[in-house]
């Protein structure tokens, strides 16, 4: 038996303190009365109200929301198809190129992706704006979705799908009635991941934004360059809150779904063994 040593606990505590302390400090100081970020002058929510009156920030938030919802939906569709292709179709023309194209954007420096897409849109005379940001975000997000979906499908063997096909189900029916329900949690996770990646992206959006399509990270970035303010802390806290609630709700529903599935399976086995 391996023992869980106190040094292990220390490593975990130090590690998680390192990961979480900066974020917690940021959140705490968003409720600081003082304009000076490092001096605590009492609890206040005034910076949140000030955000509400900041028209530029609100416009940027609206743009970011539109971009994130559209690009992550697009990415979920394309990424699911790509993931299914990689997991279920062992041989097709250019498969190596395809899997390379799916993996490369995961590690590609953002400055390269942003610059190259921008020059492409200029070459085909497409104006920069919300649409170009959506396309760019969908392109790198779909690769994350594909990887998540592929990993999920790799956990199931194809026998159920093959059985349905042998029983006369058409490929489309097999896909919508069997494959898609199997990978639904992965698709949902992929969508959520794409949403947060898009909501977060600064570099690629900066290359592809046109007039009137300034996203929230671009706005935050230009403010951050001028210094740390409680107002930025407040908007960051809101963003952290939205993402954390999303992730936690998703993981809880997933847990519940798994528990229900386990209960169903148990119930199904009981009469057989009795």
């Amino acid at each position, binding site marked *: 038996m*391996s023992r*869980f*040593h106190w*040094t*292990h606990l220390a*490593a*975990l505590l130090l*590690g998680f303190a390192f*990961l*979480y302390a*900066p*974020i917690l*400090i*940021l959140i705490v100081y968003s409720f600081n009365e003082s304009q000076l*970020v490092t001096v605590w002058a009492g609890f206040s929510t005034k910076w949140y109200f000030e955000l509400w009156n900041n028209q530029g920030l609100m416009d940027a938030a609206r743009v970011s929301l539109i971009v994130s919802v559209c690009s992550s939906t697009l990415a979920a569709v*394309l*990424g699911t*198809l*790509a993931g299914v*292709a990689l997991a279920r*179709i062992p041989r097709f023309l250019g498969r190596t190129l*395809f899997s390379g194209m799916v993996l*490369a*954007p995961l*590690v*590609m*420096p*953002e*400055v*390269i*992706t942003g*610059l*190259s897409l921008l*020059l*492409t849109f*200029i*070459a085909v005379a497409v104006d920069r704006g919300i649409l170009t940001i959506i*396309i760019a975000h*969908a392109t790198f997000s*779909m690769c994350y979705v594909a990887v998540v979906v*592929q990993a999920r499908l790799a956990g199931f063997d194809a026998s159920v799908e093959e059985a349905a*096909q042998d029983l006369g189900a058409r*490929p*489309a029916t097999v*896909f919508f009635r069997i494959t898609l329900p199997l990978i639904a949690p992965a698709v949902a996770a992929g969508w959520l991941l794409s949403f947060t990646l898009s909501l*977060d992206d*600064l570099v690629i959006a900066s290359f592809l934004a046109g007039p009137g399509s300034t996203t929230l*990270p671009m706005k*935050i*970035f230009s403010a*951050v360059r001028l210094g*740390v303010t409680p107002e*930025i*802390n407040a908007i*960051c806290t809101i*963003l*952290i809150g939205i993402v*954390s609630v999303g*992730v936690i709700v998703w*993981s809880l529903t997933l847990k519940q779904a798994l528990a229900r599935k386990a209960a169903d399976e148990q119930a199904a086995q009981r009469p057989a063994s009795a």
Partner: protein
Amino acid sequence: MRGVNWGRAAIIGLPYLWLLMFFVAPFLIVLKISFSEPAIAQPPYTPTWDSWAGVQAYFSNFNVGNYLFLIEDPLYVGAYLSSLRIAATATLITLLVGYPIAYAMARAPQGWRPALLMLVILPFWTSFLIRVYAWIGILKRDGLLNLALESMGLISQPLVIHNTEIAVYIGIVYSYLPFMILPLYSALEKQDLSLLEAAADLGCKPWEAFARITLPLSLAGVAAGCFLVFIPAMGEFVIPELLGGARTQMIGRTLWNEFFLNRDWPLASAVAVVLLIVLVLPIMIFQRMANRAGAG
């Protein structure tokens, strides 16, 4: 097996076409523009192969001026080299910080592991920009770290960390730590602990068992984690820009400035092409490993 069907064609074809259009074609365009001359007009480059005659003209005066400029100007060579150095050092530090955490997670009681995993993944979902920004308030001259150390009487002069390379290291380690921990954890968690018991029974000391069993068996995770940190860190822009100060030059920042401040698009393209050439080998090794992991 059924013959060719439309569903199958759509499953492969749609993402395939999308990636060809928006991932591969853009690189060819960057390559093309990197060989063109800057022009004052908007867009600020001279398109050189818009027709067949253009293609011929293009190859007859193949302009490598941008690349010569990159090689000749010590600023660019220096930026590439310091990016390599900073990314490699930061990757090593991330490994040294991440390994004990991943190890402790893999040896934690079974019931804790999903929660621990969640705790590692959660910061990854939180905005990168926000996490880098959070460090400014801590590291700057009148920031929380200096304030805390001064009030404890440990320092009399504020430490200068913000706007130095040290801050860049902190930023990279902090931002990319989850990318290092996750592959390490999955490699360590799979290990058969009976090997360690056998080693102990045969009189092997714990540290020796670690060096001769645990570490070699986790090398695949070490490699995956290092690539996942090194490759994006090499082209990092936000961290050197916000934490590194004016003197920390990294190539992602050079590219950004060349594009947004100097508006020299062909030169920015050349910078991107050379960066990609530097990264092609690590990216291919990473893909090979990812594919093998996916198949196995």
